[in-house]
């Protein structure tokens, strides 16, 4: 672009942004990191009156290379598996001190589905007023892409590689939301970085929920999913459009909403751009079977969550992530 504006003082422009920047640039996330984006969107929605407990993982590592921090909210990292308990402790302290600051907990899928699950279950059972956000990139990315219980079936990771005898991960992705919802959970939802308005709405709802709330955000990892760094949003959107990533809300164990699919795409559209599924396109009966398996899972999701049952409300741009012409904050003179 031509750069009259770029020559201006960027920091003063940055200070005038009409959104809250809880996570600043200067973080060391990979190019096109879905988790960095998701975390910023979460904080954009939560505003500054929050405290974050963060699990060990990429998000922690790339934001806090001492002496620098990319966080502008109070933030704390303890260890990998205790994030929910850390948040619970903060929340208990705020309760004891009569402070209204909302406590958020951030963890990846490993820190949610696997090593952090016990603490999370305990936190929910005890009813702590915490919004737990799981940035789900479907593997242990921080340590170099090892499989987690969130890794989808057939995805290749460094510990579930594809080979002559294996087509990637042999086990299903754990249905964590159902498990969470089964705690008589006031609010549990899934979101995707490809649908930022929906995501932000769900953060708001989670924050407004008195008591525990859970939000799982499908967050593409270009490194681990092996797609072009520019394609993160596209891949995430395809995940939703194929039905493999249902965007739902559950309240007290009951599903209360599902983002309707405008048009359903075949799972291959989602799988093709991702290197972790490359082996499924080999001329091999096992690969074909797993492809069919993934399609069946998507079909099952569509039926199970009713992804095609409801019609989008008119003007429901959240669900479509559609755009329309916007305006700048200051209306130009002469506008009607």
């Amino acid at each position, binding site marked *: 672009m031509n750069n009259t504006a770029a020559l201006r003082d*960027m920091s003063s422009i940055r200070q005038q942004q009409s959104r809250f920047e809880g996570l600043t640039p200067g973080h060391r996330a990979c190019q096109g990191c879905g988790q960095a984006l998701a975390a910023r969107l979460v904080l954009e929605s939560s505003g500054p009156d929050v405290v974050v407990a963060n699990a060990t993982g990429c998000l922690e590592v790339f934001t806090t*290379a001492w002496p620098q*921090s990319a966080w502008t909210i109070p933030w704390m990292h303890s260890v990998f598996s205790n994030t929910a308990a850390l948040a619970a402790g903060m929340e208990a302290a705020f309760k004891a001190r009569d402070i209204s600051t909302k406590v958020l907990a951030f963890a990846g899928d490993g820190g949610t589905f696997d090593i952090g699950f016990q603490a999370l279950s305990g936190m929910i059972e005890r009813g702590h007023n915490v919004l737990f956000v799981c940035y789900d990139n479907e593997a242990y990315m921080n340590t170099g892409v090892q499989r987690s219980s969130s890794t989808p079936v057939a995805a290749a990771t460094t510990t579930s590689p594809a080979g002559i005898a294996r087509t990637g991960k042999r086990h299903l992705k754990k249905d964590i939301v159902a498990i969470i919802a089964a705690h008589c959970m006031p609010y549990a939802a899934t979101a995707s970085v490809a649908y930022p308005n929906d995501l932000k709405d769900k953060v708001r709802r989670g924050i407004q929920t008195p008591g525990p709330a859970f939000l799982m955000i499908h967050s593409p990892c270009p490194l681990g999913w092996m797609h072009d760094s520019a394609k993160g*949003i596209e891949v995430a959107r395809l995940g939703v459009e194929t039905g493999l990533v249902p965007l739902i809300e559950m309240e007290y164990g009951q599903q209360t909403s599902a983002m309707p699919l405008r048009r359903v795409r075949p799972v291959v559209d989602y799988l093709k751009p991702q290197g972790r599924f490359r082996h499924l396109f080999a001329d091999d009966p096992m690969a074909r079977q797993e492809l069919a398996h993934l399609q069946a899972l998507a079909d099952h999701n569509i039926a199970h969550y009713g992804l095609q049952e409801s019609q989008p409300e008119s003007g429901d741009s959240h669900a479509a*992530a559609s755009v*329309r012409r*916007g305006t700048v904050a200051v209306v130009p003179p002469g506008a*009607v």
Partner: protein
Amino acid sequence: MAERMTRGGFAQPGSAMAFKTGSWRDLVAPRHLHGLAPCAGACPAGEDAQAYLAPLTNGDVKSAWEILVTANPLPATTGRICHHPCETACNRGQFDEALAIHAVERYLGDAALHNQWAYPGIPQTTTEPAVAVVGGGPAGLACAYHLRRLGHAVTIFDALVEPGGTVATSIPPYRMPKEILQAEARRILETGITWQGHTRVGSDVDLDELRREFAAVFLAPGSQRTKPWDVAGVVPAQLHDGLALLHTWMEVGSMPPWHKIAVVGGGNTSVDVARALKRCGVEEVHLVTHNGLPWDAEDPMRAIAREVRQAMEEGVVIHANCGAERLLLRGNRIIGVVLVAMKKMRGADGKWHRHGFPGTEQVLMVDEVIPAIGQTVDPSGFESLLQGLDYFDVDHHGRMTHHQGLYAGGDARSGSSGMASPAIGDGRRAAAAIHAALCNNPLLPEKQRPLVPITEMHLQYFETAPRAEPSILPVAQRQGEAEIEQSLTARQALDEAVRCLSCGNCMICDNCWTFCPDQAVLKLNHTIQGDGSPYVFDMAFCKGCGICANECPTAFIRMAPEQDEQG
């Protein structure tokens, strides 16, 4: 540089801003491309539809009109009569339905007339002597208007009393109400143009005289002379020319008392003649054209599709891909015409020819066969310039080869399609050329912007929406001068503007701002002059991931090799 250790290793908020991740970029960086929307690329008048649709989405009708008239001063006119290649080119046509750009254009034109808006940005006259414009049709009016915008004094010479040229004389009022054209023409003249009506070059004024008295002369006399016509060498004794009939009907309001007529030709005039005949009570009106129907993929006729459709609604029978092979005569009197099926094919010489297929002949019994096959320049007064040609030989900017200070455009120039919109474009480009010449400036080529094909758009961000259709007068009520197609409602116009995909240009959707994982896209509280967007890239942090470009719905952002650039 040594950092002092903090107890427990805590860090200050936002201190990572000191770490400039812009150095991570690898070869490419995001850029605002300013691509050319196909509609703009296709508009012969030089309009950029998406540019004026943008303010309209916010209900800003006046701004929209003001942007529109930077290219075309006659939107209420062209909105009615233009064949709108913009809509054919519109990317949205490949998504659901093309935008009804012509209808929005007309809506804006009508709104301006209704509100009596004046053209913005007309300066005081700065040059003397003035520029002469010969011909007050769309080309002449447009040239004069743009010259005025550039500060020049202009005098228009026209053989007729009223401005408008062929549009005024040859387009039936049911599709081009006279008062609309006159109002727009008057508004142009009111920018400070001297109107010398009833002055025909060649008889009332001499071209050389004009060249002496004026700094430059723009010739847009139109094409007034009917092309010769015959069928297999036979010309009816009493040939009725279509255009002449139309003029008569528009002036007198009646036609000879015929029952069955065949009109030959594939342009708008033939359709207008056919429809006028129908209105005058002719029972059977046949339109015979070599071309296919306007909506056919191959070899479509030039007449505007909607006009053809309306003609058919009104009972005109179209014989497409047909030619008149022979006239059936009883003495001098025509009793019928033999038609034959035709197809445009490439011949052995590699050129396109139309072939008739023997055995497909059919006889149409008619009272008269009326050719409406177009006109050429009336050479009187311009013989020295034409030198036997029936058009003015000009370059892209209307400059006449070998004739310094002479410019031409409109129907009279080489390669004209006889349409109003290209004539307006001719006038605008010639005005720019004249301006450059008078100011002794080099004539800069028009800024070339890359066209944005639909394949580069990110259509997942758009939802289908039906195209706005103006209300159409029912066939039974199509009488007299009543205009058939109505203006869009304000709501329709706004909805239609919202449908614009904004190809190649920023629609302020916030996607880049929202999706950048590094907050390297910042948003200003105003759009940047010359950029059209309120977004700037903070290259100190941009890692070059390309998400902004991949998620830009309009292909406004592209990843491009980094150049030596500030910031």
